[in-house]
């Protein structure tokens, strides 16, 4: 590995690397995101390696980052044609090599079948899940090996950094980002260019830069996917940011729960140092910059910027009041610029293609794309990147493929514990920062959890309240005590012990916690309650007045029964019932002893004859 000392040398390297990447040479890409790995994609890759040897094939093999269509993993795409095989098993590998790679034949049985039309689809780009997206940040994930800096450079990587260092002043960089109207992708949507300018203009020699990769919202994993699949783009954005702001030291604060992302980021930093793209005198510009990884230790509140800085300094992650903002007084009292992973990853694209190009995408107030992790009761679980302004309907139905098992869509929860639920009346709303806030949700980190008719909204609100109550750091009273009181009330309601005054009490508490908590965690903690009350008040009322759970979820309000005419007496339920509540003769209908039943639902999940009913 040789140090690249000038922009010219980088360009020369890029040209020779891209020449090596023969576009016509077959290349099998196997998705190596956390999701596909959990499905066994590493074993699939090994099988390809073995088979390549056995068949003495000259095919290239590449394990890439997350392709996004996590529902159908392990995903295999054969380039250059982009032939798409989802759900590949080890035993499929020999014929993929001998037929598709060698002869170019399509293997019909491995193709993706569109569940709505029943049609088989050959090419990745034709799959509705991908076809209807606008993939800007995730685009490169399927093309590069994230542990190889040369893959990234071959596709033009670090070109923006080179441009910035050789042709632009720091002020010009800030102007470009400001003109692109990039807004913070961490969820709050603060203008990135303005933030950079404030930090640059803050007095002081030493300045720091931070990448907030503490993606703690349950159900959101796009930051993880970018760091796993394209860590160099994040680094490139950070180096450009460091140059613009005048910082030479930076931190990536990343969740310990994302081991693969931590690993890939570490490799990327070492490689960038090896090529001289991090360190002293980058590309001969005289600009020094370095990055250090700091692991989060499992505290949700550390996603909040002042808590995050406390954690980097080695203290408990407790937030402090703002102002002073980090751009004035941040890490160790110095001006500090904090941006989210996606914000940083957007920067090289804006520099490469220009602000004029960037502003063409999106709505009036929100430019560029938004990435959502569409999860929960949805056919195509995965990462979806769409231009700002796409509608919920497009995301959930056109791309997400709708709700499984013919169930009814009920609500979508956006923005995690700080966000809210949106009901089906608003499916056609174009999504951007403003419209989501108006609807009582928020962009947040971009987690989109789809709920169907079997999801109880009171239970969901209680779930989020349990979460924030546990994660509340305890520093300020409204959050510490308020979340506890709200959780207790919700728990009573789900147990059938709700009172008529509970809804008003919840609303009053929510308002108090929202307006008087110290940091974003507390200020947004009541959102799940407020939004479910706004759209699903009747469900709360059913729990309180009728002592019933319409979605049949809340255990204290439901009973399980055996439908005698469907029960075949196969004894599976009786054998597995944890409390021995089910009894009966073989081949004769069984009975559930309600006194013993703990309503765990195990029997319903096991029954092959739909003979267990819930009421």
């Amino acid at each position: 590995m040789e140090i690249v000392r000038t922009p010219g040398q980088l360009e020369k390297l890029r040209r020779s690397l891209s020449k090596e990447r023969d576009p016509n040479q077959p290349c099998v890409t196997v998705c190596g995101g956390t999701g596909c790995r959990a499905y066994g994609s590493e074993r699939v890759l090994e099988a390809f390696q073995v088979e390549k040897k056995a068949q003495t094939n000259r095919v290239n093999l590449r394990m890439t980052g997350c392709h996004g269509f996590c529902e159908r993993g392990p995903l295999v795409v054969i380039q250059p044609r982009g032939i798409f095989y989802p759900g590949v098993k080890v035993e499929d590998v020999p014929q993929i090599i001998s037929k598709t790679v060698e002869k170019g034949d399509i293997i019909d049985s491995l193709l993706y079948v569109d569940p709505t039309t029943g049609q088989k689809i050959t090419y990745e780009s034709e799959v509705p899940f991908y076809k209807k997206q606008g993939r800007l940040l995730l685009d490169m994930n399927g093309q590069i090996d994230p542990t190889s800096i040369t893959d990234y450079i071959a596709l033009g990587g670090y070109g923006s950094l080179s441009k910035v260092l050789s042709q632009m002043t720091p002020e010009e960089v800030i102007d470009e980002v400001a003109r692109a109207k990039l807004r913070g992708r961490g969820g709050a949507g603060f203008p990135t260019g303005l933030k950079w300018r404030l930090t640059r203009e803050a007095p002081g020699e030493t300045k720091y830069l931070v990448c907030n990769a503490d993606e703690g919202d349950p159900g959101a994993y796009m930051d993880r996917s970018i760091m796993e699949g394209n860590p160099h783009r994040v680094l490139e954005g950070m180096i450009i940011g460091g140059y613009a702001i005048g910082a030479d030291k930076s931190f990536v604060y990343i969740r310990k729960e994302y081991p693969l992302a931590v690993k890939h980021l570490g490799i990327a930093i070492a490689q960038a140092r090896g090529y001289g793209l991090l360190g002293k005198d980058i590309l001969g510009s005289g600009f020094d910059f370095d990055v250090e990884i700091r692991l989060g230790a499992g505290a949700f509140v550390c996603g909040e910027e002042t808590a995050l800085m406390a954690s980097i300094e080695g203290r408990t992650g407790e937030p402090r009041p703002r102002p002073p903002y980090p751009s004035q007084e941040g890490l160790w009292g110095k001006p500090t610029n904090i941006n989210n992973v996606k914000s940083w990853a957007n920067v090289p694209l804006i520099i490469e293609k220009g602000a004029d190009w960037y502003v063409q995408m999106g709505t009036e107030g929100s430019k560029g794309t938004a990435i959502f992790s569409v999860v929960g009761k949805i056919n195509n679980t995965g990462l979806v990147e769409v231009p700002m302004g796409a509608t919920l309907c497009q995301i959930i139905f056109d791309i997400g493929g709708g709700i499984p098992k013919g169930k009814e869509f009920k609500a979508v929860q956006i923005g995690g514990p700080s966000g809210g639920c949106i009901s089906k009346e608003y499916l056609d709303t174009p999504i951007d920062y403003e419209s989501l806030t108006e609807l009582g949700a928020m962009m947040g980190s971009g987690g989109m959890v789809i709920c169907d008719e079997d999801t109880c909204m009171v239970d969901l609100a209680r779930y989020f309240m349990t979460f924030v109550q546990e994660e509340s750091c305890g520093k300020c009273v409204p959050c510490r005590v308020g979340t506890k009181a709200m959780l207790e009330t919700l728990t009573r309601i789900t147990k059938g012990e709700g009172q008529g005054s509970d809804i008003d009490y919840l609303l009053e508490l929510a308002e108090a916690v929202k307006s008087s908590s110290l940091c974003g965690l507390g200020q947004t903690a009541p959102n799940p309650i407020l939004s479910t009350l706004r759209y699903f008040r009747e469900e709360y009322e059913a729990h309180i007045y009728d002592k019933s759970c319409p979605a049949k979820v809340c255990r204290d309000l439901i009973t399980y029964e055996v439908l005698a005419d469907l029960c075949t007496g196969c004894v599976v339920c009786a054998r597995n019932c944890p409390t021995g509540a089910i009894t009966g003769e073989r081949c004769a209908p069984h009975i559930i002893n309600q006194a013993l039943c703990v309503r765990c639902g195990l029997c319903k999940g096991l029954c092959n004859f739909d003979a267990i009913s819930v009421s």
Partner: protein
Amino acid sequence: MADFSAKEVDDILNGQRDGTESSLILILGEIQERYHYLPRDALILVSQWLGIPLSQVYSIATFYNAFSLKRQGRHIIHVCTGTACHVRGATQVLDRFQRRLEIESGETTPDWEFTLETVNCLGACALGPITVVDGQYFGQMAASRVDKLLKEFGMERERA
């Protein structure tokens, strides 16, 4: 399960790039990694080495979820209770683990075989509900698959 050794902790401490307070979380992370919990004797060494009160070390050790003050079992089970897993029935999975192991989440079986923990989100939502045992992922979990999984990891006791 590795036993506490003062020398190992010393090695971890001497391997630090800087000996200031700001490396406290990193140090505890490495000790946790080594022993799967933070032995009290190790925390005393850390406080002496950094020259900070033991209470400050404990405030960090108890604030962050990644640290445990209790010895962990041979197998560590993480049940994901992220939102996607929750709406897909993670509660029932967790419940079954609790009943089967006769412990609550956050506890370890008396024979030191299993520790049961919950985790907020692993970001593998397509596979939900998901359970991770000793770093190995098990997707599309259901309460009915719990017994088999425990058996795979050596649980032989009769059902509770």
